[in-house]
């Protein structure tokens, strides 16, 4: 199979295309000759410039009908795919990306490959790579099903690079019948005021684990340090499951993958499932009172100590420097 047309399921936050989408568009240019975006939302015109800049020639704009975009998009993509015959459709492994790829796989009766880390064309075949067992083992897969191939990739797997293309042409797809999927109506949107960068886009990430001791310690030890460094804050699954912080902050196999310039792990043991989400950071600093903690196996700078002592002192020292 030669790969001609690649579609990318695009996502945006307001009028800004997500970095995961830009990463996929960049990869799509490498594996295919024509790259197009599909987008469920009413501001396709506003994002067509960014999509074009990263290689999409067209954006097929789907009416989300006030419902969860991933849930309704599948019906429109299935119709569009029959008409335009893409060879591959790429999704980011995000909340809406997963909704869309899941529904579409049923509509088209195609298997899905998810949690991709690598994607390449070898001998005319698409080779998909993922990691298992907490990122210690890499597995390559191929599909034997017919096109289009449905693939979801973890954000941060590829580097986004602009192609310098002009704005993508907007092809408005009329409202399609998505059946009861369209009933998933979004009534209200609550956004906690986000100060500083997003977890996946931050240059510096400070994460806390069970070693911070209590839910109340998260703010002074983790959040405040992150803010001082103009970074984002994250967490291990242990404290997400304990209900100390929301799931959106989880870093690791079943959470987010981050790749900041500096990752600071506070009171995190460094289980393989946590490491898989952060071990590709440029620099890793760990503070843990157990000198044998596996996190030290990946840390560039390890401090064997108590976060309750080291972090307040660190915050003071940084505050003094910043004046």
């Amino acid at each position, binding site marked *: 199979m030669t790969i001609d047309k690649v579609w990318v399921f695009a996502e945006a936050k307001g009028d800004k295309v997500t970095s995961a989408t830009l990463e996929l568009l960049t990869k799509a240019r490498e594996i295919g000759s024509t790259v197009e975006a599909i987008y469920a939302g009413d501001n396709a015109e506003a994002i067509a410039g960014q999509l074009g800049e990263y290689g999409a020639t067209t954006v097929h704009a789907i009416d989300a009908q006030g419902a*969860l975009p*991933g*849930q309704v998009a599948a019906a429109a993509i299935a119709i569009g795919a029959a008409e335009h015959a893409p060879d591959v459709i790429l999704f980011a492994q995000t*909340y809406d990306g*997963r*909704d869309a790829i*899941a*529904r579409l*796989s*049923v*509509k088209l009766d195609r*298997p*899905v490959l*998810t*949690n991709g880390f690598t994607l390449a064309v070898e001998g005319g075949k698409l080779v998909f790579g993922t990691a298992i*067992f907490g990122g210690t*083992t*890499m*597995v*390559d*897969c191929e599909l034997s099903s017919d096109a289009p191939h449905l693939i979801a990739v973890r954000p941060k797997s590829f580097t986004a690079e602009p192609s310098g293309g002009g704005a993508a042409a907007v092809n408005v797809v009329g409202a399609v019948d998505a059946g*009861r*999927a369209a*009933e*998933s*109506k*979004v*009534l209200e*949107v*609550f*956004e906690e005021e986000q100060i500083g960068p*997003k*977890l996946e886009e931050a240059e*510096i990430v400070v994460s806390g684990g069970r070693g911070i001791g209590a839910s109340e310690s998260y703010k002074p030890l983790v959040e405040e340090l992150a803010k001082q460094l103009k970074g984002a804050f994250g967490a291990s699954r242990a404290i997400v*499951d*304990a*209900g100390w912080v*929301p*799931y959106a902050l989880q870093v690791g196999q*079943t959470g987010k993958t981050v790749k900041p*310039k500096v990752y*600071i792990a506070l009171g995190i043991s460094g289980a393989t499932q946590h490491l898989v989400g952060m071990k590709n950071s440029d620099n*890793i*600093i760990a*503070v843990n009172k157990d*000198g044998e903690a596996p996190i*030290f*196996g*990946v*840390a560039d*700078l*390890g*401090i*064997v*100590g*108590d976060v309750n002592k*080291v972090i307040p002192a*660190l915050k003071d020292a940084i505050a003094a*420097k*910043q004046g």
Partner: protein
Amino acid sequence: MNVVVCVKQIPDPSVPGQLEADHTLDRSAKPILDESDSYGVEMALQLVDAAGGGEVTLISLAPNGEVSGLRTALAMGAAKAVLVSDEACSGTDALGTAKLLAKCVERVGDADLVLAGTESSDGYTGTVPAQMAELLGWPALTFAKKVEIADGKVKIQRQTEAGYDVVEASLPALVSVTAGVVEPRYPSFKGIMAAKNKPVDSVTAADLGLEGQVGWAGARQSITNVTQAPAREAGEKFEDDGTGAEKIVAFLENLKVI
């Protein structure tokens, strides 16, 4: 109100994973209830309780007739279970799993709500729930961190990057829940004893009318290469003798981030 809960039984994650020669997971260890699904079970029990009637039915696809994880969920208070266990299901992928589980929902009949985890701990495709909803022709409210039922509708708070969305659909519907939504109860001794006699309806792919559509052939994918990921080198490590903070400051200054 009747709630069906998807529960996956997974190899104990504290035992290091291994692949068999045919690239399926080594499942020789006794499987346990996936922690991701313990939240769905607890949520279902609470919702049925609040509705003042109805029952919780579990559905699971597992090799070799495994029931140990199901027994845990039955001991928590679920009434009964449907288990798909069949040689023919070995190698089944996410879509095949969803096809089997959707048929189980139909077999149970009269479900108002299906609950699932957002992603399983061993497979973590995170697609099975929405695939099931599409197969059933139902709305799916995914990544719920809060679930409420009122007036024939289900309303959730859906996790987003920056907060949450309030999303609603009418029943019957499928909802996937994140970890931490509720605190799963520990089975009581009485619960554990009672679970031994609760009915488990064991079915095959053929019983569900899906012969030939599941297993390796249905998955239409193959593993072509397995390699060890390169390990990262450890750097310097210091005991904190009161200078730990200074060392971090120096490191950050060197990187020009402060």
